């Protein structure tokens, strides 16, 4: 039976994820060290796990309100205000989603009319393009370059804005490059956003994972931007809670209402016990000034410095990422592009890394290496990569 005529054209046209494609192959090899995962290697803090367990023991297994536990929304509001100085009303501007992924999709659903364009910096996380397409919009890449430390510049943004542009997705700290956007750069972007009267979906899931002096700046903190911004965040990265699937969206009430309507019809509410665990994570965090999170960041920082120095020393030039848990070295010096490099490294060097073009064309000469692995494992992997690179270095 030919199913094509039954299936949605829009969905069929979406290409499969480049990461998935690569790891379907990588998974078949033995003795491979994988540096592919995009999730923390730490356990969820005990205060979160305990709160989740207790909620189950108490038999709290019913739905929560559509927008999530009021107590959790209040803690999220407090957290955003205390740690990032943005002010959202917990009842009319914040709601809890099934991971940040749902929040991104809802935001796009709520704003896109057929044919609307959404600008997405490239390279970026693989979900934005398909999500825009599923909503009937068109994702337009705004190229980011290693010379700019993979920041989105006002100039490169302006180049791709048309009269159909509805919104910009702003994913910083960035997966896969590890780039961050300092306040000055956000201010430049804000000018363009205002000039062209567009919205911003700011995916700040890696906001706690920044290194060096400067902490993350929320885009909504920039003057005049809160009213144009949907802030998307979650517990996965900062609290090592990927499998719990808890995220949240903060938006001006007019957008919030439409997003919530979709959430209500298709999801109803995020998992109740996962919400209790998230509540435990925030409460525990406020109790000890987020000590556990800071410990994780310190550990990531050591690994990050280790990788950057090893990669640069072996000739895979690598700009110093200031956020997330990825490094994004250029492999041109080996005479290969990212895809060939990744394939051969897998076969000959037994290390799996993600080819950079999985994140858009401008990632072609790069590979993504995750450092959500123990130092010990990273060390072994770097030794293997070094041996492999020495064979091909020109």
């Amino acid at each position, binding site marked *: 039976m030919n199913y094509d005529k039954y299936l949605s054209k829009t969905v069929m046209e979406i290409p499969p994820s480049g990461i998935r494609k690569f790891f379907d192959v*990588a998974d078949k090899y033995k003795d491979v060290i994988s540096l592919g995962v995009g999730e923390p290697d730490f356990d969820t803090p005990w205060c979160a796990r305990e709160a989740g367990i207790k909620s189950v023991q108490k038999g709290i297994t019913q739905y929560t309100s559509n927008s999530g536990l009021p107590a959790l929304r209040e803690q999220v509001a407090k957290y955003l205000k205390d740690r990032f100085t943005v002010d959202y009303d917990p009842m009319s501007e914040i709601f809890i989603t099934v991971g940040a992924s749902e929040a991104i999709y809802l935001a796009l659903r709520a704003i896109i009319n057929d044919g609307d364009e959404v600008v997405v910096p490239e390279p970026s996380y693989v979900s934005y393009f398909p999500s825009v397409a599923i909503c009937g919009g068109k994702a337009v890449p705004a190229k980011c370059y290693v010379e700019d430390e993979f920041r989105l510049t006002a100039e490169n943004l302006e180049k791709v804005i048309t009269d159909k542009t509805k919104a910009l997705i702003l994913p910083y700290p960035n997966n896969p490059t590890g780039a961050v956007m300092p306040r000055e750069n956000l201010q430049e972007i804000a000018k363009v956003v205002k000039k062209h009267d567009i919205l911003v979906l700011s995916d700040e899931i890696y906001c706690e994972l920044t290194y060096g002096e400067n902490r993350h700046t929320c885009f909504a903190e920039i003057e005049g931007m809160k009213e144009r911004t949907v802030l998307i965040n979650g517990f996965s990265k900062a609290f090592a809670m990927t499998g719990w699937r808890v995220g949240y969206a903060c938006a001006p009430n007019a957008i919030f209402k439409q997003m919530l309507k979709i959430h209500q019809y298709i999801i109803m509410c995020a998992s109740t016990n996962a919400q209790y665990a998230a509540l435990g994570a925030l409460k525990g965090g406020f109790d000890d000034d987020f000590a556990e999170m800071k410990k994780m960041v310190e550990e990531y920082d050591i690994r990050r410095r280790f990788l950057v120095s090893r990669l640069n020393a072996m000739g895979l030039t690598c700009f110093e990422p200031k956020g997330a848990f990825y490094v994004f070295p250029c492999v041109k010096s080996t005479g290969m592009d990212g895809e060939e490099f990744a394939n051969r490294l897998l076969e000959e060097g037994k290390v799996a890394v993600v080819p950079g073009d999985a994140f858009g064309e401008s990632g072609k000469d790069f590979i993504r290496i995750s450092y959500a692995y123990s130092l010990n494992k990273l060390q072994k992997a770097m030794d293997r990569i070094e041996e492999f690179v020495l064979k091909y270095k020109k």
Partner: protein
Amino acid sequence: MDNFDEKILKVLRDDSRFAPAQIARMVGLDESEVAKRIKAMEASGVIAKYTALCNTEKLNEDVVTALIEVKVTPQMSSGFDTIAKTVYQFDEVKAVYLMSGAYDLCITVEGKNLREVSRFVSEKLSTMRDIVSTATHFILKKYKTEGVILDDGDGEEKRQVIL
């Protein structure tokens, strides 16, 4: 000890084979500065020893380890120190801790077999003048020691690459 010393220690405690040059890059200091700090920590005794952590389950030699609870009569002037020092001079004794609670000293003893450990307890330990009583617990299996998980029964759970 400052934050840098702590970071250096953190790396070394994870794997003491990291060279100062590598540690320097990880913590953001000069190589010479890291070497100097490590030397200082060795000199002051913060770093007591570099060693290899063995999984005795996988060694072909027979080793029996026992935890021994010891009650003692403290000395007038030196408290528990004199008896602890007497106990730790034996090669069979791997650790000596002063404890709070129901007994005073906790001693870890290693021997080739049960008999060897038993003989140590009955002939050497319990005959000491200030030792009131002992209770010997043999360790049957080590699942985790010094923060390292030793039983690889389940292995490392494979983490999925999702997206």
